[in-house]
Structures are given as structure tokens and as C-alpha cells.
């Protein structure tokens, strides 16, 4: 159920995102989702790509500092209150959302949101018990 996400450290300067993007493009690796968390001085670029192992190796070989993290892709009904229902399922569990961002593709009438939880295994159990669907890596990235 877990998805491997690649994170990169980038200084907050013109052109600093383009180098990794160009490198992945050259190798034919498509970026399926991307989120940039930034401060005034630097940013953390989070990427979801199909061939994450090769992408991580390529980036590391070029001197980038890469971290691979496990995240979950959660189906959220595309209607008012859809997200609130998902979040309520986690209430009282002690599971913390480190961050989250929307995946740019829909699956039918379902939106997909990427979650980074402090305890992904506990989150899987809790969400599935609540009847919330998680999207597997192969499905998400096909």
C-alpha cells in the first residue's frame, strides 16, 4: 500500500529546481506528482515517479541529496466533506499527518491525496478499517 516518495533539498534560488527536473526528463522518467515545501532560503522538493529506485540513483549520482520516504495515496470522494470524512477516521488514533498534498489525477469520482504519516502502518490499518480505499503503487503509477 505504501508509495515511495523521493525528496530533494534545493536552495531557494532561480534554476535550482530545473536541474533535477531536466535530469529525470533526459532519462525518460515521468514525474507523476510533485510538491515543493519552501522556506525563505531553501525548499524540499517531493516527487512521485514510476521508477523511483532508478530516479534516486540517478539523482544521487549527480550529487543531489535524496531521501526516500513512504507515503500513502488515499482515495477521497470528490464531494464537499470528502476530505473531512477521511480525516475524521484518524481522529483519536494518535496518528499524525506530517504533511499532505493532492495528486493531480482523479480516479473516476475519487480524488487522490498523498499523506505522509508519522506511522504509515497504523494509518493503513485505521483507514482500511474505516472503509477508505488506498491506492497501490502499481495502480497509481501505471
Amino acid at each position, binding site marked *: 500500500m505504501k508509495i515511495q516518495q523521493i525528496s530533494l533539498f534545493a536552495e531557494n534560488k532561480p534554476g535550482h529546481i530545473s536541474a533535477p527536473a531536466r535530469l529525470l526528463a533526459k532519462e525518460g522518467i515521468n514525474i507523476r506528482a510533485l510538491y515543493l515545501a519552501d522556506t525563505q532560503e531553501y525548499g524540499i522538493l517531493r516527487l512521485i515517479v514510476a521508477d523511483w529506485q532508478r530516479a534516486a540513483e540517478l539523482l544521487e549520482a549527480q550529487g543531489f541529496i535524496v531521501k526516500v520516504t513512504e507515503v500513502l495515496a488515499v482515495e477521497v470522494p470528490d464531494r464537499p466533506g470528502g476530505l473531512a470524512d477521511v480525516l475524521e477516521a484518524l481522529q483519536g488514533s494518535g496518528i499524525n499527518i506530517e*504533511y499532505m498534498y493532492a495528486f493531480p489525477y482523479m480516479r473516476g469520482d475519487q480524488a487522490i491525496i498523498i499523506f505522509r504519516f508519522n506511522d504509515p502502518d497504523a494509518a493503513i490499518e485505521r483507514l482500511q478499517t474505516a472503509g477508505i480505499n488506498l491506492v497501490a503503487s502499481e495502480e497509481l503509477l501505471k
Partner: protein
Amino acid sequence: MMNRILETSAADCHPLSVPDYTPADELRALQLKRLQAVVARAWQHVPLFRSRMDELGLTPDDIRSLADIVKLPFTQKSDLRDNYPFGLFASPMKDVVRLHASSGTTGKPIVVAYTQEDVDVWTSVLVRALAGCGLHRGDIIQVAYGYGLFTGGLGAHYGAEGLGATVVPASGGHADRQIMLMKDFGVTAMCCTPSYFLHLIDRAAEMGVNMKDLPIRAGVFGAEPWTDAMRQRIEELSGIEAFDIFGLSEIIGPGVGCECRRHSGLHIFEDHFYPEIVDPETGEPLPEGVEGELVLTTLSKQAMPMIRYRTHDMSRILPGKCECGRILRRIGRIGRRSDDMLIIRGVNVFPSQVETALLAVEGALPHYQIILTRSQGLDQMEVQVEITPQMFNDKIGAMQELHDKLQHSLDRVLGIRVRVSLVEAHTIERSEGKAKRVIDRRTV
């Protein structure tokens, strides 16, 4: 023999017994007497000095002339660090009335001590320094050096008070308040770092205050190297006369030497501090006029005598006599150092301290670079730290926490505020595999 030297020293070495215009042979005779006494004192009370003398087969009796000083072993800053905190004291603690500290080369500061007599000597040399700058009773002197462990604030304070002037102990920082005090109190002289005074000039202009309209007429500036170009700029912008004062905590603090109104070198208060110039590589003495490393011996210090202390400040002894008539020899203004010490807003900083601070957070030393700039007269220090895989985290909060930890560690070890920047891996330029640690972009 030993006792005889010690007995005669006490009577002949009154701190205020020598004026600046004494005949040269009298000054040399006094220096010899005091050198013999201080060597005997250190030999009796400081085990490190005694063991080094033993290694060289020397006893205090071997010092028969001033020229014999070259036989004595050097003292290094690392000796102060290795004997932290009180290991080099020659007086029992009950006779120590004051402690100061300044940055060492790593995490621990170096500690210096004063007996009441040492404080009196310190005051006396500062009185002579300030008098040489044309200051006197009736002047209102603002001291904008930091008060505290740093010797600048209290040293200048005691000197100005000893002179009979009115002291405004403003301490460092708060530029707007400094300018208000200068204006409202009719301050006639300022003691601070030259870069801070430049900052005050800029700030005053922003506040609509023209320094030239204020009563201030002199500035006694030290604790960092500065150039004649900087002096010119200060004097042009503020209409004051700017003096260079020199000193270091290990010897006594500010007041080891100071310019007179001729502004041709700094007179060393030679009756208390004996200057030599040596080759920084070999330690061999260099002749008058040749640039080398300044080595100082305290001739009258009680609590913590320093014998042949390697200052790492590069200078030379100026030949000839000063037109002012003082017999005291002069050194050239200090422009550079023979080691990697940086002086930032008057505070001594070693790159090794930065390493200590970074190691304390990470456990492994990341690549780093120190970048020095000057903005509105104030030195700014930035430490760029290259991200390592161990440091990197995909959570922004964790990265901010790392940044804060690095910031606190650097602030604590260096004692000054620095800017920490996290930079991408492999972005700090390396020359022949070794990163250039310091980029100094400070200009006048």
C-alpha cells in the same frame, strides 16, 4: 639570588613610576629589572613555565640583559586553553580581583586574571593612552565596547575614569540610543570598534543627526584591524580625530599600545609590555623595521605573567623616534595575522570554533564556509553548511529544527550572532579537494 630579585622588584616596579618621556637608558634599566622579576615570578609559581625553562636548562638567573629574552620559551594561546581555567595563574585566588575571558580556538574560552595591582597598571596605561589622544579631565567619554567578560568595555571604562573624564558606560549595541546619548550628554570622545563607529555615523544620518554638529572630537578605536582608508572615511564623515588603540586580553586588554596625535604608529607602553618581532615560521627575532609576528612579554603582571606571548598579529617596530617626544617605541598598525583568526565586530573567531559548533550538532563535520561581509559598517558573518544525507529530512519542521540547532550552537561557541544557511551538497567551492574555509568580502 632568587629572593634578591624578588625583593628589589617590589620596590622598584611601582606601576606609575615611569613617565612616557624618561631617558631611554632609564627605561631599558627598568625593563630589565622588571623582566628579571616577572621571569622569576612565573618560574616560581607557574609549573608550565618552570618545566619549559627546565627543558631548556634555564633558570631566571640566566636573564642578565634584555637581549637574553630571546632565550626564553614562547607562550602560545593553546597553553591558555590547555591550562583552562586557572592553570597559568601566578597569584593565589585570594589576590585575584578580576577575571576576564575571550574566545579560545575551540569551544572553551581563555581566562585571564588580574590582581588589584594589575588592574591599576591597566588603568594607568589606558590613562596614558587616552591622554596621548588629547583627552583629559572635563571630557565626556562614551564607552560602546561590550561590558562583561570582554576586556574592551571595563578596560576603557577604568581608563577614562582614571583620567578624570566623565564616563558614559553605554556598552555595545542599540545604535539609536548611542546616538541619543552622544547628542544629549554632549559626548566629546567615543571608545568602540571602528566599524561600529562607521555604523553609528550611518545610523545618525538616517536619524537626521549630523555627527559634525555634535561636540564629539575624538574616537579611540580598537579590537579589530582597520585601515588608513577607513580612518579617512570616519574623519571625513564625522569631523573627529580617529586613534588606533591596540591590546589583547592575554596581555592585559586594550591599552598595550596606542597612537598619539602624530598618528605614526602605536606607542607600546614599554615599561609594562616588552615587544619583539619574530619570524612567524621559525620564531627567530627580526631586526627593527622588518615585518613579522608581534611577541609580547608582560613586565609587571602579577596574576598571570605572559612570557614571550605569540600574538599572531603581524607588525613591525618602527625605527626612529616619534615627533611627539615620547621615548616609547612604536609598532606599525596591525593589518593581518599569521594564523587564521578572524576578528568580527571586535570578537575573535577561529574557523576551528565553527567546526566545534557544527560537530556538536551533527557529530560529523559537514562541508562549511564562512562568508564575511560588511553592511553599513557592521561585520556580518554567514556560515554556509552543505546538506549531508544524514542531515536531510523531507519534513520542513525537521529542517528548521536542524537550522535552529546549528544557529544556537554557533551563537554559543562563538559568542556572536551569525547567519546560518543550509546549502545544497557540492556547492561550496573546493580547491584541490580542500574547501576554502573563509571568504572575506569586507571592504572599507
